């Protein structure tokens, strides 16, 4: 609704004649490289594309039937869901805790904030490589650390669950800064008068957090939830470089599996497109459900 009431340059007639000049480039680029491919994805998911010649043949729903009987697909779907289930609440909870900490009275606060943000700007490939330096089973830093302190050495690479844990840990390292940015912005928007009023009423620190701060963080939480889930369903770089989906398919996620299928040795692009469509549908479904839930919660509160 608000988009309709946008104040614009009022002109009589159909509108500004130079509008196409200004909107054209971005609309063209986005239309050609984002909207059109999205439509084509649906088409290609119903085809078989020959690996070498690139010849496209219509196969109907065959790709989806293959998917329904593909254990690696289900494994990567499950892994992706598990990854989201752990990293999304994990990074958000830690991000919130850090935001509260960094919003309190603290010496050298800007320095601490910078340190938490820093991993944000590092590329997924670099993060994966740094992760491999940490988690390498025979020559990694964590192994040396464990030996130094007499702790048990974890088989980060050969054990499936440990490898999965390594992917989760490195993801938390890069994601908490982003969650902290969003929560910190939200915390700074909480009017201090509310806290003072609650304190006058005798609310304890926890009660003030639970009943004053937390409800006001709702929009930030909603935003982070959507963004983090999209990230999870998209995750590729770090996993690809750190574990390559292994050992076996213990850390195979939809991102790495779709890439391997379409651009790996098999080069089955029709099937790859079909996996992409599933990723898209899952992301959209989640976003819509969350959006409706948040709207229902807001309407209920009014």
């Amino acid at each position, binding site marked *: 609704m608000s988009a309709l009431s946008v104040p614009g340059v*009022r002109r009589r007639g159909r509108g500004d004649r130079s509008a196409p000049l*200004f909107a054209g480039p971005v609309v063209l680029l986005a239309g050609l490289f*984002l909207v059109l491919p999205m439509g084509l994805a649906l088409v290609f998911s119903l085809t078989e594309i020959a690996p070498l010649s690139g010849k496209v043949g219509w196969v109907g729903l065959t790709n989806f039937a293959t998917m329904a009987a593909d254990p690696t697909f289900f494994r990567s779907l499950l892994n992706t869901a598990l990854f989201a289930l752990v990293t999304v609440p994990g990074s958000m909870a830690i991000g919130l805790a850090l935001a509260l900490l960094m919003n*309190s009275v603290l010496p050298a606060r800007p320095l601490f904030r910078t340190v938490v943000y820093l991993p944000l700007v590092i*590329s997924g490939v670099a993060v994966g490589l740094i992760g*491999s330096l940490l988690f390498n089973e025979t020559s990694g*830093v964590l*192994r040396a650390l464990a030996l130094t302190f007499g702790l048990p050495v974890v088989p980060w690479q050969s054990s499936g669950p440990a490898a999965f844990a390594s992917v989760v840990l490195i993801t938390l390292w890069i994601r908490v800064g982003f969650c902290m940015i969003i929560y910190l912005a939200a915390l700074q928007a909480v009017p201090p008068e509310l806290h003072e009023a609650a304190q006058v009423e005798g609310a304890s620190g926890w009660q003030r957090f639970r009943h004053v701060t937390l409800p006001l963080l709702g929009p930030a939480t909603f935003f982070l939830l959507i963004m983090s889930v999209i990230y999870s369903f*998209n995750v590729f770089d770090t996993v690809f470089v750190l574990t390559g989906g292994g050992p076996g398919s213990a850390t195979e996620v939809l991102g790495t599996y779709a890439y391997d299928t379409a651009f790996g040795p098999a080069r089955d692009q029709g099937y790859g497109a079909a996996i992409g469509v599933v990723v898209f549908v899952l992301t959209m479904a989640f976003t819509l459900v969350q959006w409706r839930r948040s709207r229902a919660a807001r309407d209920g509160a009014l």
Partner: protein
Amino acid sequence: MVATVPTRGLTVVDARAHTARTPGRPGRRRVGWTLRVVAAVLVAVVMVFPLWVMLVTAFSSGSAYSQTLRLWPSEPTLGNFTRVFAAWPVGSWFANSVAVAGVTTVLSVAVSLTGGFAFAKLRWVGRTPVFLLLLATMMIPTQAILVPQFRLVSSLGLVGTFWAVILPGAAATFGIFLARQFLMAIPTELVEAARVDGASTPRVFWSIVLPLCRPLVAVLTLLALMYQWNDFLWPLIVLRDPALFTLPIGLQFLQGQYLTDYGALMAMTLLATAPLVVLFLVFQRYFVQGLATTGLR
């Protein structure tokens, strides 16, 4: 204000004095402060640790980690850098990254600014639906359109050229969203006044609107640079000639060459990471502002 309600006013003043810091008795306050500092230091150590070992490894000779933990390069050396530079065209990968990220950034900032202006300040048929469509593309997962995008770019004959990375990269619609948001806050009267004086729309954009957009340009530039400099999956698919590699693909390629030679790998990781880290340290305010608004990453 406070003095108007004498009896309760005192309590309010009292409470206000407390909330300025942490509430509670002075002793507890001090304990709380100490705990927070300890927590912050611990967090900082954990966050910096991976970067620190990257640095140490990059400047250490030989295999840095076998049995014992090393937190300082024993014999600081640039050997890792010279070794890799001698064997692979890392310099041209760096140059490729600068060129691709640079051109893409300039393009994407330009189309975001003009587009943002059109969506915020111009009136035209279909403005709202087109904007909503662009907004929706922000939610398309990269994975979902990988195959069709590749086939499209390939049918345009762009695969194996930098344009295959630059053109789709410039279509990053987060910029439109940011630019529109920013430009809507510019008073329409300003634009109207120039109009009344007979200025054309391009003229209004160029000499009235653009000069007000410096913070916006800073945010757009930094975010686009970060995104393009780090982009991996798409360049990996369309730039297959080692001469055309950008740093992220080059890094991943070197991982296959050097395996667990972490001295070499960390030297190159540092090389690929340092420019953005420096940029971030200098322009942190804009980065944070941009990330908080768009949620990119």
